[in-house]
């Protein structure tokens, strides 16, 4: 067979990790980005810097400190163990937390930029007309920043799939639990099995290109459809 069972297990695990991480990040980053986009305070620069930190720190450094931070004898690790009975480091949950920290700037920054471009006057108008804050968010903010949400999701997803240094340190390379694609690939290279490494890398490249093409053409599709509906509207309404 082209791919070994280890590869397939790692492939599904990687996509599962990227999916869970991206969804959770969207949930957290949307309010965070909104807050940052409307916050006028000297502290804002500090917050933004902290969020951008994973961009600067080498992933292995980040991974090493996350390892210390999530270890069973750490504050977080102990409490998590008492709460759930599971260890945080070297588990899928730990990997999700680490990936979220690692990919946070990739999701927050496009959203924040998009939110900053929204005209406050439009929102105030809607408020005067009696639209609730939820209604304003779903009818004005989300439709006008749809592309940025897509971009943020794609960046977060792709960045999580490509992560290596962090998972190397914190994952423990356990098949089916924390052994993601990049680790399997590195393993092949380290044990001189270059053929298997080439096969896996080729699969990953093909899959990524197909996925990105689908996402971007979907995006184009919605744009085109919007143009069409607008054009089809009766002159009086437009």
């Amino acid at each position: 067979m082209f791919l070994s069972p280890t590869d397939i297990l790692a492939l599904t695990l990687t996509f599962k990790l990227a999916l869970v991480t991206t969804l959770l990040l969207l949930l957290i980053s949307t309010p965070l980005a909104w807050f940052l986009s409307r916050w006028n305070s000297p502290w804002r620069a500090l917050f933004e810097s902290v969020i951008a930190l994973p961009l600067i720190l080498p992933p292995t450094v980040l991974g090493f400190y996350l390892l210390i931070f999530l270890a069973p004898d750490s504050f977080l690790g102990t409490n998590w163990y008492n709460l759930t009975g599971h260890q945080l480091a070297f588990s899928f949950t730990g990997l999700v937390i680490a990936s979220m920290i690692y990919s946070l700037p990739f999701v927050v920054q496009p959203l924040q930029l998009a939110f900053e471009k929204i005209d406050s006057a439009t929102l105030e108008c809607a408020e005067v007309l009696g639209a609730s804050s939820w209604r304003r968010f779903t009818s004005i903010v989300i439709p006008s920043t749809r592309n940025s949400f897509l971009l943020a999701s794609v960046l977060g997803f792709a960045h999580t799939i490509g992560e290596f240094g962090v998972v190397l340190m914190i994952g423990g390379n356990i098949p089916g639990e924390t052994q993601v694609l990049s680790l399997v690939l590195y393993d092949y290279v380290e044990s001189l099995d270059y053929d298997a490494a080439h096969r896996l890398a080729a699969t990953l490249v093909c899959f990524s290109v197909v996925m990105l093409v689908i996402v971007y053409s979907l995006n184009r599709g919605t744009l085109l459809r919007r143009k069409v509906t607008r054009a089809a509207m009766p002159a009086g309404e437009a």
Partner: protein
Amino acid sequence: MAIRLTLIVIRSISVLMMSAFLGANCFANEPVTKLHIAVASNFKQVHQVLASEFEALYSSRSNTPIKIISSSGSSGTLFAQIKHGAPYDLFLSADQMRPDTLINLGLALKQSRTVYAQGQIALWQPKSTDPFDIHIFKTYIGKYTLANPKLAPYGAASQAIMKESGFWQAKGHSRIIAHNIATAFQYVASGSIKMGWVAFSQLKNWEQRFPVPKHSYWLPPITDYPVIHQVAVQLVRAKNKTLAAKYLEFLSAPKAQTLITSFGYLSPTI
């Protein structure tokens, strides 16, 4: 139309992925006795053969089948993970320093310390047409590589030979320090560097797919460099202590040792 098509594609992919997750979960729920082994990358190939032999041997003797889970990585990374609570039962290191440190830290059992293999270094020059030895450095011009002597025992051994023969400080060739022995091998195998100190076990591994003629490498006498002992230890927090101990016994038994030597290592016992 195009949108509908892409939606169908996405849906079928997600269904496929869901079924793959469910499949993976079913697999994890089988009643098996698990043994989790952390193994240094350089030993991974031999380890896979040994692990499946052990599984077959002991599964037939006990009620529940035995499943060995292997995590491979550099000895340094595995060491850091063990220090921070990684759930491994056994640690097969590529050196003796890290297992000994774990014993001193109270994380590994002293009585479990087993030398399971002895490493050999080789000077490899894939394009060489004639046999050579250390004196090649007299005429060799260009780069050569070795593993970082500070981190890798294979690197320290190469450095010792270079120093002993007086070529460490010699001019005419420049040294590229590789992060570890696997990287050193990659430099030479890819052709980026023409000559380098590698592990003999790597050459044996490479020989299974590519020709490695006898005159393309030189094996220095084993007494010329510090002994490279690859040490295995059982971790204190091992879940299945009897099985872990059995595995260490199995590793040092003549059958496993014969296999280990066929992969380019020396046996510390036979």
